[in-house]
């Protein structure tokens, strides 16, 4: 028996036996379809005409001037249909599910963006859709819950565990073990058992491919820094992947430091986690000395997953990518700053990446180029931000 799907020592297929045939079926289907011209053409068609690719690479001149250093570009995934990068992956996997003859898709969601993306793809391709979402997340992300329902999906609140994203993943996996014959589990980020981390990365890598082309057109050279927020890590890997061989391009992933890395309230699984195995993969996880998984925390529901996709763990250990973090407060400041200086309201997730630029761009040379992946728009987070601003008397 050979092991498959490893990035260095990370990844693998740590799953209950009953899922093995489903995983094998997926692996075979994907290895056929990824080089299938007709499938790729169909995917491109929907990405262009339905989702609105390519998304702009926008030079944020006001922010750049204010920070007084590196030139800042924003990859505008917030303008993608659905309001976040998630659509790239949901369209890809829904097409894959359809080709595999599945009639139903299920997904987990935290902030709700992946749930909305999956529900859209379900509506588009006529697939029955069920979304698992931690009870707490359904409460703090009401607008997205409503969107999913409008799109025809069944939203199932999860009351087990800490009632957040990891519990939604557990519940989706459980459901899949009983339903895989007609159901595809549409995982939302670069995590899970092989081949999921590869499939999601491939569908998201369109982001980096476009950036490469766009920055050559606008600046005539590759960027110096790529910056993206990290929950499970799909928007970051989507941006990074096309540049992995370009050794002069720095890649920086920003984790959620929540209330601070010295507290227990954060979602920084690379900075503060340990190697472990959960949800089908060997990677970094927040856990105690007994190997019990700990709860992650972030102001942003999309970043409070206690683990990280295995390819990120590998990029970290091999030194190819760097990982930093931003606190809730830094993210909120960045949220306000981008909104005021550019008239763009970013998702709280993406605000973590913008926070890195605010901290660091001023110390960089003016001819350096930084590309920030603006992974999603902030409309869904307005309630959270308004609450905090009111509490602070702003």
């Amino acid at each position, binding site marked *: *028996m*050979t*092991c*498959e799907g490893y990035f260095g020592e990370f990844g*693998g*297929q*740590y*799953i*209950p*036996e*009953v899922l*093995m*045939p489903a995983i094998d079926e997926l692996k075979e289907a994907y290895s056929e379809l990824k080089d299938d011209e007709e499938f790729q053409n169909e995917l491109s068609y929907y990405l262009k005409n339905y989702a609105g690719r390519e998304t702009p690479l926008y030079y944020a001149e006001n922010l750049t001037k204010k920070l007084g250093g590196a030139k800042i570009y924003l990859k505008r995934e917030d303008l993608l249909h659905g309001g976040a990068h998630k659509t790239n992956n949901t369209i890809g996997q829904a097409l894959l599910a359809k080709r595999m003859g599945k009639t139903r898709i299920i997904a987990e969601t935290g902030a709700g963006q992946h749930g909305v993306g999956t529900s859209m793809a379900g509506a588009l391709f006529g697939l029955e859709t069920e979304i698992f979402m931690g009870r707490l997340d359904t409460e703090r992300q009401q607008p997205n819950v409503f969107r999913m329902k409008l799109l025809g999906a069944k939203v199932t609140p999860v009351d*087990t*565990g800490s009632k957040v994203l*990891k519990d939604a993943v*557990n519940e989706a*996996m*459980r459901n899949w*073990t*009983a*339903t*895989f*014959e007609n159901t595809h589990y549409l995982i939302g980020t670069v995590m899970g058992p092989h081949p999921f981390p590869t499939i999601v990365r491939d569908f998201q890598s369109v982001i980096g491919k476009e950036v490469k082309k766009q920055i050559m057109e606008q600046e005539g050279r590759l960027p110096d820094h790529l910056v993206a927020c990290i929950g499970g890590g799909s928007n970051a890997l989507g941006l990074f992947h096309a540049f992995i061989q370009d050794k002069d391009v720095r890649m920086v992933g920003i984790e959620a430091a929540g209330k601070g890395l010295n507290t227990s309230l954060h979602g920084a699984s690379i900075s503060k986690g*340990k*190697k*472990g*195995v*959960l*949800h*089908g993969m*060997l990677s970094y*996880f927040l*856990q105690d*000395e*007994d*190997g*019990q*998984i*700990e709860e992650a925390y972030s102001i942003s529901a999309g970043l409070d997953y206690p683990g990280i996709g295995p390819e990120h763990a590998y990029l970290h250990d091999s030194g190819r990518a760097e990982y930093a973090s931003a606190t809730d407060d830094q993210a909120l400041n960045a949220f306000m700053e981008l909104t005021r200086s550019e008239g763009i309201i970013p998702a709280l997730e993406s605000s973590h990446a913008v926070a890195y630029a605010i901290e660091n761009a001023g110390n960089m040379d003016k001819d350096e180029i930084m590309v920030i992946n603006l992974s999603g728009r902030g409309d869904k987070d307005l309630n959270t931000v308004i609450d905090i601003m009111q509490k602070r008397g702003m």
Partner: protein
Amino acid sequence: MNKPVLVSFLVSGDPNPDATLKFMKALDKYSGVIELGIPFSDPVADGPTIQAADVRALSNGFKIAKSFEVLKEFRKESDTPVILMTYYNPVFKRGIETFVMQAKEAGANGLIIVDLPLQEATEYREICKKHEMGTVFLAAPNTPEERLKISDEASTEFLYLISTFGITGARESFEQMTFDFIKRARTTCKGKICVGFGISKGSHAESLIEQGADGVIVGSAFVDIIKNYGDSEEALVKLEELAKELSEGIEKGYEKRNK
């Protein structure tokens, strides 16, 4: 185990370690094997019943070392084989070899790690072999023939047949699929085969043993009793009653099979 047996599952520390020891002793009389679960924060292969038991144990401050202590105490009185069941992360975090040695020292006869499939288990199997620790792998009705053979060879105690698709939890009845699977495994496998997931009644045990299983694994039905009666005398009585019913079912199934 030459005659078919009852494999009784409990979550250690549910609702507290002292109770677990009492429950093990109560079940011992009717059980050929005791399967002792080590609670995990994210038990994705288990249903709500066992997950709730894990939560009860963990929220009472349960630590893995306690599972070993409970087993050590049990060993003072009984030689009944005990298999420890857990997920891979607690084993990985401790270090596979440390975990295996501690389990061995406590008196465990074997291990089940539900999210460690064969292709990821090479090092684990070598370490278990080195320390003479038994291994139990799982097979599902959709496990292909070749994989079923390898799983059987890799399982030193018995092969754990999952009765159906899905997660653990008591069910009303069994489908033809389960019976077909037992027959298929009976022909393919050289070692013992025990069936688990969804078994809660004597009549279930009877029909599964009649089809050729060497044992039935019962978990959620016992855990349900503990949920309802907690750490009480009544719980002990109910556990023993159910174990008796199941072992009588096994006996009947065995007689029918040999007719």
